[in-house]
């Protein structure tokens, strides 16, 4: 890249940073304009983490290939009893076993 292109990239990164910060403060700004939180909105807010995080999990399970899906199933059962570090280790071991140890 020449220096003009490089400066261009720096501007893109800065714009992305501003856009990200707006998402991080936007909900707060919107909600503090309201006097109190209606119960339905409270229920909606309580559902936010599970709803968002599911969208980062389910497509990977369906479209990520069967080796990824198998490791996620194992990690799921590990996660019912143990912390997420054990989930990561178990899932990683499964996918490595499938890919490198010739398990089919």
């Amino acid at each position, binding site marked *: 890249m020449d220096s003009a292109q490089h400066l261009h*990239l720096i501007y*893109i*990164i*800065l*714009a*992305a*940073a501003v*856009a*990200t*910060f*707006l*998402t*991080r*403060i*936007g*909900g*707060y700004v*919107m*909600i*503090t304009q309201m006097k109190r*939180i209606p*119960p*339905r*909105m409270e*229920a*909606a*807010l*309580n*559902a*936010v*983490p*599970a*709803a*968002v*995080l*599911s*969208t*980062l*999990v*389910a*497509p990977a*399970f369906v479209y*990520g290939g069967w080796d*990824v899906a198998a*490791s*996620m199933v194992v*990690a*799921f059962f590990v*996660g*019912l009893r143990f*912390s*997420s*570090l054990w*989930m*990561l280790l178990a*899932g*990683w071991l499964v*996918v*490595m076993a499938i*890919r490198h140890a010739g398990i089919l």
Partner: protein
Amino acid sequence: MKKDDFWQGVRGGFPVMVSASPFGALFGALAVDNGFSVFDAVFMSATVYAGASQMVGIELFGHNVQPWLIVLSVFAVNFRHILYSASMARHIRHFSAVQKFFTFFLLVDPQYAETEKRAERGEPITFWWYLGFAMIIYLPWQLMTMLGAIFGQLIGDPRAIGLDVLLPIYFLGLVLGFRKRDHWLPVVAVSSLASIAAMHFVGSPWHVSIGAVTGIALAACMPLPDQPEEPVTLENEV
């Protein structure tokens, strides 16, 4: 007291740092692959500080996509933060304006999840606890980005060393962590199905926003748990 809170946060954030580190290194390596310098990669990690959107950003940049579309995609991937910050407002009323600025700048998924869990347990949310939790993730994120960018060639194919499964499994663990909440199963089921369908018919990164909004809308429409509900009659059903 501030010091105790800070170090309690650091200890709490440590496992997150460990599991996020491979992604920092992976981001650094992929960024260099897509035409970034080491400085650019660290600059993006330090200013954007949102792993999944950083991955999307470098991917699009590598394909010479128009800048407005890159910024819009980063915005879309991070759109969930609007919901986080709305939900966080209840817990950080006592923070000063400057503290709120840093609180929101550092608001990544595990930081939000841990703050909510802490509030649910009835433990105080102090700025110093929050900052400690954030710094043990933020600073190593920069370091790992730099190392990944420098040694990018060594990582080679991330699939070959199984790095690609870590992110979905990590998020799966976070989903499981919320399983005691009201309507958890229907929300997870509906968000999952909607995101799978959106991935197929609309494409990434919109599956995130579409799936999330569907699950949240469902939660808002379900019977409220704390108040006795009116008996449902056939006429009320749609």
